[in-house]
């Protein structure tokens, strides 16, 4: 944190020096950004810089300012249609669209922010050129400047396009959705017909209240607990299962290792939306598994011991809480184990053989070797990816959504908040937006999910980035 503040201080101090010590050309660059280059003979660069500046002002004045001006209220004029009986046409008033205002506003602010950064760094560059000129150093021509773009400053060339993509696909949408969490954008406030506006922290409050009408607090706590249980169980069952399967297949006594491995890998190769939808149909209330179970009398047996209520003629594999939770975890083992097996195979092959052999000579049993050598080695290597897969499972949309596509909740509290007993935060969020247009609550849930993931990741990742492991192998 201190380092960050110092960096910030230095950043502005340099800018201050540039303005204070700059000559007429440098100071002129405060207003006309290209002046500093033009005055030192870099005419083309100067013109380009000035064009960028003009472009920015034109963009802000013509496109984003109208939106930004209304950002405080998100629009005041509601859409009204007036039917004119004389001309038989509908006229629509000049209405405000809250959604566009918010989106345009966010983009406008980002552009201003980017321009400020460019403006400050421009001043510094101009000042540097001034001092170079004063010291009689060589000033790059345009051609030479362009050459640095494939050499010393190649990273600029490389990162520009990908950063632009990330800006459009990740940064703008995330900022936008964070803003939505503080508005009342829901089914009753949908642009363009209606306006929505800022409501402060009301949505966050709603997430933690539970009354008879608002059940978000009640549901949120339960969905959160199930999300965490799911993430941990799903990660560890597939992890352990994958390692055991890999060990089993790679044992020297197994004949035809490759064939076995391929058999399991086929299941990864089929897209999840096909296999999961198929499995959800197999285990459906009137699906083939239920057909077989009632034929062999399993349904009746489970009714007798009380696992299936008497009123049902089928086993509710994916349609009742409890049953569905267990089934989801089991089916996830089916989905995840081959994948983990594939990874574990690669790592197991690299375990230093001398360790295993010396352990065997010392009389360690297979079981001891597994727990004392194989597992620590595996954990050492896959530790970071284990954390990543817990995060990935918190956000595991496919398995839950595709399996419980036809699940209908009977709990009124859940139904009130448009959730189901088997929902993860992420599927709940999706249902809220896609089916119920409840964007405000979805955003709040999204932010909460982010915080959970961030906390888990920060505890582990900071070590990974800050550790200077990356140059170890170069």
């Amino acid at each position, binding site marked *: 944190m201190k380092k960050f503040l110092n960096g910030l201080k230095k950043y502005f101090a340099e800018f201050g020096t540039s303005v204070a010590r700059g000559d007429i050309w440098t100071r002129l660059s405060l207003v006309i950004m290209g002046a500093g280059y033009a005055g030192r003979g870099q005419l083309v660069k100067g013109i380009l810089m000035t064009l960028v500046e003009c472009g920015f002002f034109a963009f802000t004045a013509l496109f984003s300012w109208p939106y930004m001006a209304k950002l405080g209220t998100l629009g005041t004029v509601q859409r009204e249609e007036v039917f004119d009986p004389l001309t038989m046409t509908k006229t629509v008033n000049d209405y405000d669209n809250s959604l566009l205002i918010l989106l345009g506003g966010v983009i406008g602010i980002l552009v201003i922010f980017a321009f400020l950064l460019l403006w400050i760094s421009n001043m510094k560059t101009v000042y540097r050129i001034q001092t170079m000129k004063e010291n009689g150093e060589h000033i790059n021509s345009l051609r030479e400047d362009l050459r640095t773009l494939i050499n010393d400053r190649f990273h600029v*060339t490389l990162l520009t396009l*990908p950063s632009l993509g990330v800006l459009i696909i990740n940064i703008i949408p995330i900022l936008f959705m964070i803003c939505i969490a503080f508005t009342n954008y829901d089914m009753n406030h949908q642009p363009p017909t209606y306006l929505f506006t800022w409501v402060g922290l009301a949505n966050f409050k709603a997430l933690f209240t539970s009354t008879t009408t608002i059940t978000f607090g009640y549901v949120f706590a339960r969905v959160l607990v199930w999300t965490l249980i799911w993430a941990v169980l799903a990660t560890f069952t597939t992890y352990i299962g994958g390692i055991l399967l890999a060990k089993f297949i790679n044992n020297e006594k197994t004949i035809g290792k490759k064939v076995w491995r391929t058999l399991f890998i086929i*299941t990864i190769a089929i897209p999840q939306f096909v296999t999961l*939808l198929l499995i959800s149909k197999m285990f459906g209330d009137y699906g*083939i598994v239920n057909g077989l179970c009632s034929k062999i009398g399993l349904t009746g047996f489970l009714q007798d011991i009380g696992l299936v209520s008497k009123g049902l003629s089928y086993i509710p594999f994916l349609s009742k809480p409890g049953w569905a939770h267990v089934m989801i975890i089991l089916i996830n083992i089916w989905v995840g184990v081959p994948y983990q097996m594939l990874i574990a195979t690669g790592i197991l092959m690299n375990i230093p053989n001398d360790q295993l052999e010396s352990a065997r000579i010392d009389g360690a049993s297979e079981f001891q070797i597994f727990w004392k050598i194989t597992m620590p080695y595996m954990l050492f290597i896959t530790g970071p990816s284990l954390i990543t897969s817990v995060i990935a499972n918190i*956000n595991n949309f496919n398995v839950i959504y595709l399996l419980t596509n036809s699940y209908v909740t009977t709990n009124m509290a859940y139904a009130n908040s448009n959730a189901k007993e088997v929902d993860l935060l992420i599927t709940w969020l999706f249902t809220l937006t896609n089916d119920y247009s409840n964007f405000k609550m979805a955003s709040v849930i999204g932010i909460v999910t*982010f915080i959970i*993931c961030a906390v888990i990741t920060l505890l582990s990742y900071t070590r990974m*980035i800050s550790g200077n492991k990356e140059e170890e*192998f170069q």
Partner: protein
Amino acid sequence: MKKTVKLIIRHVVLALLAFIWLIPIIWLVVTSLSANKSIDTTHFFPEHWSLDNYAQLFFRPDTAANFPAWFKNSMIIGIACCIISTMFVLMVSYAFSCMRFRSRKALMSFSIILGMFPGVLSMIAIYFVLKLFGLSDSIAGLIIVYSAGSGLGYLICKGFFDTISVSLRESAKLEGASEFTIFTRIIIPLSKPIIVYTVINSFLNPWMDFVMARLMIKSKSPADWTVAIGLFNLLQRNLIGSYFSVFCAGGVIVAIPISVLFVIMQKFYVEGITGGAVKG
């Protein structure tokens, strides 16, 4: 004697496991060959066999199932994403792995933080952003959605680049090569496994994804859909009765090219993941 028994038990257990894992796949294949269009809840194997589902899939597109169009759309998206994503990933990885510049660490931390936001959260907003640019509901829009953010997935590839000996780059520099030359002439030829991994992964991504396409494509005309949306739609309550085995046939057709790619990728996959995981 005891050894033989053990050996047999080992293989029986393996066979049993493989059987469990393959049941849904077998069901998929046999149902796709069924003459009965709806779900058969009493028989695992169909009573009457027929290839009609495949014929219907390819030659008789109707208002609900237009597989040739879906396949074409998914193919275009897959190939475009494959090219753009691979380029982005390689470019970002080279910049972060082989070059040293001032804001490098900050950018890397920032990208990891960005990756922690749940994708589903920003999906709706992405839809609005693309709508603002007039790109929603189009194949170009989907290509942007799948590939524009791909620069963030550089970790595994960067891990691979980190293992390429630095002396190679240094000696090239002494000979007067620019960074661009080093990137295209030294690093890329040395990174074949990771490039194959990235290419296949980014090609498969749009084939496997379902949520994003569902949100982005609001068009009601089946000709505009991708394979994932189209097949999902066949299982809606009003269609499942007459299209279930067609869905299975579609699943088989999609799975074949992907399986082939997977078998090719298997080796690289393991190398890529483990390599990337160790060196983060």
